[in-house]
């Protein structure tokens, strides 16, 4: 379980870094958490509370369960033989979480945000799956540990740069982060999370940072050689690499403009999918 805890710490660090980049103190997320815990929750008229709570709780749970199959160094909390598919299944839970929150709070802007995320999900999911499959194809395995072990010498991120880039883009999109924050955009007053307050809001956003951290950590065995590296032990290299990727993702939030999801849809289907398919073809030819 230590692996999951490490990723939790990384998620908190990501929140701190985001606060620093936004010009606030590093402990701003912790203060915000304390404030959210002590404020009373708002209730909207005729909201579907069970569905909304399900959406709130399921996001951090999915992030934790996904973290259980991501290796840190050589160790992994739960050894599932098809861990890449498992990771993919858990991150798709974000679709349900955002839509449920948007629907359950019975608010027009929140519902718009929920639907936006579904559209965005249809755009990012296929390139994302193909990026995962590209790495799995090169390693002949759907197990993160074997994929990491297969990159002996040359990292997959180096010789399949398109797959890696698509993975990073879809990691941003799946956590509706930065340029893909349209579902929770300011133009709809906060979108899907508009009516979340108090502990609900805290849990939901903690889950989002958790998912971001897990997505960053999963890129290490997929594309960055896992725990391989000189001097330091494997787990330390995994954490360092994951932290660098995570910092890059967090930094991207304030550097890139928000992309409307239908424009992203066009770009995803006309550019990303053909590009990653070509990458897969190249990898397939090289491997076989």
């Amino acid at each position, binding site marked *: 379980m230590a692996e999951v805890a490490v990723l939790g710490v990384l998620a908190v660090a990501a929140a701190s870094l985001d606060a620093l980049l936004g010009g606030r103190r590093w402990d701003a997320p912790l203060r915000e958490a304390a404030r959210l815990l002590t404020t009373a929750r708002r209730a909207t008229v005729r909201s579907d509370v*069970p569905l909304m709570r399900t959406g709130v709780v399921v996001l951090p749970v999915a992030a934790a369960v996904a973290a259980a199959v991501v290796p840190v160094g050589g160790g992994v909390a739960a050894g599932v033989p*098809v861990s890449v*598919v498992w990771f993919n*299944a858990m991150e798709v839970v974000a*679709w349900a979480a955002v839509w*449920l929150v948007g629907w359950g709070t019975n608010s027009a802007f929140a519902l718009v945000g929920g639907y936006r995320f579904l559209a965005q999900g249809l755009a990012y*999911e296929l390139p994302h799956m193909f990026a995962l499959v590209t790495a799995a194809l090169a390693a002949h395995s759907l197990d993160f540990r074997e994929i990491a072990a297969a990159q002996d010498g040359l990292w997959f991120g180096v010789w399949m740069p398109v797959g890696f880039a698509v993975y990073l883009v879809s990691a941003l999109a799946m956590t509706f982060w930065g340029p893909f924050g349209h579902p929770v955009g300011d133009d709809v007053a906060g979108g899907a999370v508009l009516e979340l307050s108090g502990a609900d809001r805290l849990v939901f956003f903690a889950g989002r940072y958790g998912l971001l951290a897990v997505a960053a950590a999963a890129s290490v065995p997929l594309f960055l050689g896992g725990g391989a590296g000189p001097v330091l032990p494997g787990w330390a290299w995994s954490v360092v690499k994951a932290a660098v990727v995570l910092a890059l993702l967090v930094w991207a939030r304030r550097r890139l403009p928000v992309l409307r999801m239908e424009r992203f849809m066009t770009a995803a289907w006309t550019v990303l999918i053909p590009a990653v398919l070509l990458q897969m073809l190249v990898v397939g030819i090289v491997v076989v």
Partner: protein
Amino acid sequence: MVWALGAVAVACGVAVFVVDSMARATFALLASFLCTGGLLMAAGLHYPGVLVILMMIMEMLVMAVFMVMYMMNPAGLMPMSMLHNRRGALAVAGTAFAAMVAGIVAVPWPERAGRPPDEPAVALGEAIMGSKMLVMMVIGVAILATMIATVVLAMKSGRYGDDA
């Protein structure tokens, strides 16, 4: 394990037709599918089990859009009955269930023959790219045909062009 997951799966399946909100019905169905995925994993079929979980989450979320779009009382705000022949359906389903359970209990099932391969997912991959290639080809063509047919059906101009 099997009984617990199965009970939850069936209870959620029943909930689909009991709850009054389309969103709740969709997610009850999703919960039922998640239990099915768990059952498949419990049976040692890791890859199909996870695949069911992955696909059904996506499928049910797309379904939720259509449910809310096409149903008359998406959030159960205007309770109404959209059933017909309830008693007949109940009788047919109940009889079928009784018959199946009787069959399940009565039939002497064979003992387990052989043992599962070390990596069922690898075996599956090799089968559909080898001895079961025909299945894979049929699935592929069926998916392509469905994609074309659905787009044609759902397009604004419809099957008969703009005039129809």
